């Protein structure tokens, strides 16, 4: 636990063009915890994640990573801060012009001065950890969606970042692949001490992985707490999410 938290959002308003999707977001994420962000489709979960990783400048408020205001710093300093972060995008986003191995070696080559042999070994270890070490020379187009997701997680984690963001990590995965990914995320928290931020729709993931869950609805944070506490919530929006019922329209909501 650091004095200022790995991630701190202070009164953040974020959205596209001139219409904010979320307003008044205050959130703190500490080392060694898995935080799930849940909400109905279109509620702004992925938008919030984009703001947290430096891809979408908030209209108001501040996003602090490792105690530094992400959007107030110069380009190069922001690069240094972001190099301590790993991100797993929803669609895997593997570099289509590189092999699986080159994809996983990429962060090591670009962000460290380690010898190539070491980066190579590191990448193979990470691929083996996720059970995809048999495909290093394949191109991303030649592997399945589940394999691509695991390779993308290997790439996000190859330099053991202190903070990992995952956007819908289990979307379109079969239960076995989803379980492999879930186990790996728990290992990152437990062995590596990384903070993991998950945007997800998968309530099974929320129940089994999250230390804390944040519910996004009606343009802001509707509730936050442990999954078991939220499961007992009387808030209709929260109840609907946990019971997988249609989410009622909230006043001023999305």
């Amino acid at each position, binding site marked *: 636990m650091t004095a200022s938290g790995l991630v701190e959002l202070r009164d953040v308003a974020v959205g596209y063009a001139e219409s904010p999707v979320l307003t008044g977001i205050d959130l703190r994420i500490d080392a060694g915890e898995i935080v799930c962000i849940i909400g109905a489709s279109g509620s702004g979960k992925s938008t919030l994640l984009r703001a947290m990783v430096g*891809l979408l400048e908030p209209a108001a408020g501040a996003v602090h990573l490792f105690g530094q205001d992400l959007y107030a710093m110069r380009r190069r300093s922001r690069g240094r801060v*972001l190099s301590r972060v790993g991100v797993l*995008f929803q669609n895997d*986003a593997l570099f*289509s012009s590189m092999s699986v191995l080159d994809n996983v070696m990429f962060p090591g080559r*670009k*962000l460290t001065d380690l010898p190539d042999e070491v980066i190579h070994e590191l990448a193979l270890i990470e691929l083996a950890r996720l059970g995809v070490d048999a495909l290093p020379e394949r191109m991303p187009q030649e592997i399945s969606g589940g394999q691509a997701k695991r390779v993308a997680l290997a790439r996000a984690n190859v330099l053991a970042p202190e903070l990992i963001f995952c956007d819908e990590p289990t979307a379109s995965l079969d239960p076995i692949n989803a379980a492999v990914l879930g186990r790996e995320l728990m290992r990152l928290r437990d062995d590596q001490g990384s903070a993991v931020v998950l945007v997800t729709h998968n309530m099974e993931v929320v129940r089994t992985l999250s230390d804390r869950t944040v519910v996004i609805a009606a343009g802001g944070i509707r509730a936050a707490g442990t999954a078991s506490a939220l499961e007992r919530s009387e808030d209709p929006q929260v109840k609907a999410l946990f019971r997988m019922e249609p989410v009622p329209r909230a006043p001023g909501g999305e």
Partner: protein
Amino acid sequence: MAGCWSGPPSLSDWHAMDVRLDAIRPRSLLQELAAPARTRPAVLRIDLSALHDIDSTGVAALRAASRRLSRSGIAVELHGASPEVARVLADTPEPNPPELPREPGALERVGRATLAAWRGLLTLADMTLEAMQGAVAAVMGRRTFSWRDVAEQLELMGADALPIAATMSFLLGLVLDFQTWVQMHHYGTESVVLEFVGIGMARGFAPFIVAILLASRTAPAIAAELSTMEMRQENDVLRVMGISPVRHLVVPRLFAITLVAPALSLIATTSGILGGLLVTVWLDPHWMSALETMLREMTLSDLWLGTVKSVLFGWVIGLASAFTGLHSGYGALSIGIAATRAAVASIFFVMIVDSIVTTLWTLAQ
């Protein structure tokens, strides 16, 4: 029955008109209701008792008809529906779409377009500055820059384009010589035709034809590749690693095009002269003297001008195509749009740069 379909209850019966529907024909329902609506009743009561079932197309047709009638001041009441039909009507959700944004006026559209163009210009300037910084850092030996990427691009842009560039300029030289020779022959000055072809190719035609080739072949390829990477979030991966897509993707392409454009231009100049020489040898018995005249009159400054132009053309093409690729949006059409815009913008800016450089050079002579 959906309450919002009923007219105000205060309307009296003599204002009402009854219509019985035994089936809903979605294509013709509006026409079927047009005749009773022509008498302008306050309420049109639609009897659905003969209707055995209804699906969502039928519900949509009924709702569309009642919306249209209510816009003409005729309220619609549905009655007599069987329990099954009533259930479908009640269960079909009533959409509540947000109000469409107001259509901007002409002045607002011009204002918005101007602002967008200004922002685009600032983004292009920012990208150019960052590319220059990245290029300097790469030359200074920054470890993370990959010269292998430059080599790959050299092959794609240069080696693969070489036969086309050489053939095109050979044919251009041949055509230029032919057409000029015919005219010059009338005045007995055909001995200067090869000189004209040589100097013309070196100063302008060769760099220009190479620029057209790069703008139509390389620029769309760069724009489509970067646009695809943008759409697949590959560039977002770079950004969240703190790696600038401009430095990582654009700078190697700019290095490559800076080398490829003048190299191709020199080859195109040679090839064009050979095309002209072939025609001269064929048509002019004193071709040797024409060749000597050309070699005597052509100077290094002619080649220098062509080289400078081709480097500038290369930068313009590289920056225009990278900019369109990185800012093309995320839709399915964006790749095609980016490729088209890259080609058009490249040719347009090449023409502008050509005009400026040629004018300045001529004035300086």
